[in-house]
């Protein structure tokens, strides 16, 4: 099967990006080096190609009801121009996907979903719509091919984002300029006669924005952003640093922390499950887990001695017994230490608990730590 290419593929090649396969896509893993790019986002600014991610539009008088039956969070909390993180679960509480929902108009929602889950999510949502009392009032569009996106992240991004979308917003959150957006807000601007959406969200733990725009103008936005952010020392950032950045702040990655056998309660994402909004898919199973406890729980850890970096799949030991597996693990460029997340019994998932990570048959000392592993000073 040939790999899918984003509209920025030739831009990555021009910049010398090292391309790898990621979830069926050919994407840049790094341009200069993972550590260099990681620190650039923590200290200045970086731009990421996230065109591989999926966009779904759910519109109509039935959209709110349909989404509240299907997702864990309560979309009724969203004013126009607000976004929220949410999960989509199976009846047994497993996670179909984790996603962002933006209410971009009174009866219009934009969902940003994981690249590797687009086909599954679209089928899942369509089936939900067919079985919903709201079906006649819902228009569904998988806009993943039509739309692209970039993430612009880092402490200096707010100083130049307004150069990319001049003046007040035209829809969504009513703001005088993009840099006035609050965290999780989204607004629309015009760029060359085309509508672009700018949200103050990201996957790095830094301030920043994500821009969703027609695929045809994504390369122009990418190039303009690199120019606008030049004096802020912006760099293009690959998937390698995207992974180290999100691991430091303990954001889950679907396929690592989340899958159809893992619930948001087990993942420590219960904050995004709204039990008081009425029924939704998975509610009974999730409520049972919340009330009666879970068998496994996501925990963050940090290596306590010099070791090889922990990697996904490595065994976690406590008290001489295997208690779980590493879900995500890497060398933290900010902390210069091995860090990760994994699933262990709840009694082990307590900050301060001594554990060991097995690397090539040898066990190295580590400790369960509070999330996030890295916090800005």
């Amino acid at each position, binding site marked *: 099967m040939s790999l899918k290419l984003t509209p920025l593929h030739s831009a990555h090649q021009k910049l*010398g990006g090292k391309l790898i396969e990621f979830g069926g896509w050919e994407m840049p*893993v*790094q341009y200069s*080096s*993972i*550590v*260099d790019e990681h620190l650039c986002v923590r200290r200045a600014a970086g731009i990421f190609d996230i065109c591989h991610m999926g966009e779904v539009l759910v519109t109509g008088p039935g959209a709110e009801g349909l989404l509240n039956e299907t997702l864990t969070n309560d979309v009724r909390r969203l004013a126009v121009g607000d976004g929220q993180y949410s999960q989509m679960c199976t009846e047994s509480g497993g996670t179909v996907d984790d996603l962002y929902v933006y209410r971009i108009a009174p009866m219009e929602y934009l969902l940003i979903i994981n690249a590797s889950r687009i086909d599954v999510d679209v089928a899942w949502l369509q089936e939900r719509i067919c079985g919903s009392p709201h079906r006649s009032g819902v228009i569904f569009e998988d806009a993943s091919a039509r739309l692209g996106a970039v993430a612009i992240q880092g402490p200096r991004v707010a100083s130049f984002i307004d150069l990319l979308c001049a003046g007040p917003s035209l829809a969504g959150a009513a703001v005088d300029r993009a840099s006035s957006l609050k965290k999780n807000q989204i607004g629309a601007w015009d760029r060359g006669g085309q509508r672009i959406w700018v949200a103050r969200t990201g996957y790095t733990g830094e301030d920043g924005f994500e821009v969703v725009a027609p695929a045809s103008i994504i390369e122009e936005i990418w190039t303009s952003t690199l120019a606008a952010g030049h004096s802020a020392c912006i760099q293009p950032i690959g998937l*390698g640093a995207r992974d*180290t950045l999100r691991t430091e702040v303990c954001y889950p990655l679907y396929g690592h922390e989340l899958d159809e056998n893992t619930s948001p309660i087990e993942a420590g994402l219960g904050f995004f499950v709204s039990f008081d909004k009425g029924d939704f898919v998975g509610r009974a199973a999730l409520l049972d887990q919340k009330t009666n406890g879970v068998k496994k729980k996501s925990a963050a850890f940090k290596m306590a001695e010099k*070791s*090889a*970096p922990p*990697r996904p799949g490595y065994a976690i030991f406590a008290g001489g017994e295997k208690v779980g597996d590493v879900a995500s693990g*890497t*060398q933290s*460029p900010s902390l210069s230490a091995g860090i990760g997340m994994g699933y262990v019994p709840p009694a082990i998932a307590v900050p301060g608990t001594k554990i060991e990570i097995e690397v*090539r048959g040898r066990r190295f000392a580590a400790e369960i730590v509070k999330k996030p592993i890295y916090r800005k000073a």
Partner: protein
Amino acid sequence: MSSQVPADLRYTKSHEWVRIAGDTATVGITDHAQHELTDVVFVELPAIGRKVKAGEAVAVVESVKTASDIYSPVSGEIIAVNDAVVQDPALTNSAPYAAGHFFQVRLSAPAEVDSLLTPADYAKQVGA
């Protein structure tokens, strides 16, 4: 992007280099290899005294992204390892042919050296 391929060394397809002095081979990874790995954060070297065969995985080098096995290009006994690169793995990136070397082998089959890649062969392989 051209990488350095010193003329006085021999090479393997798996990107190790060998410097021969008498019956001793000094081994490391090439400039091309360190460039591909970038950000080396961990190096695990064999025990001194270990008998190794040519082509045997004897060390591990880890970048932020991946772990890679390092193969001994020659057969013999490990007589020294570079503790400096274990303490400061970034030497692999900054000085792959000097301070960032990995270990030394006392050759048990010196004729093996003749079958290693010449600088010209290796340069061709990596497009240097």
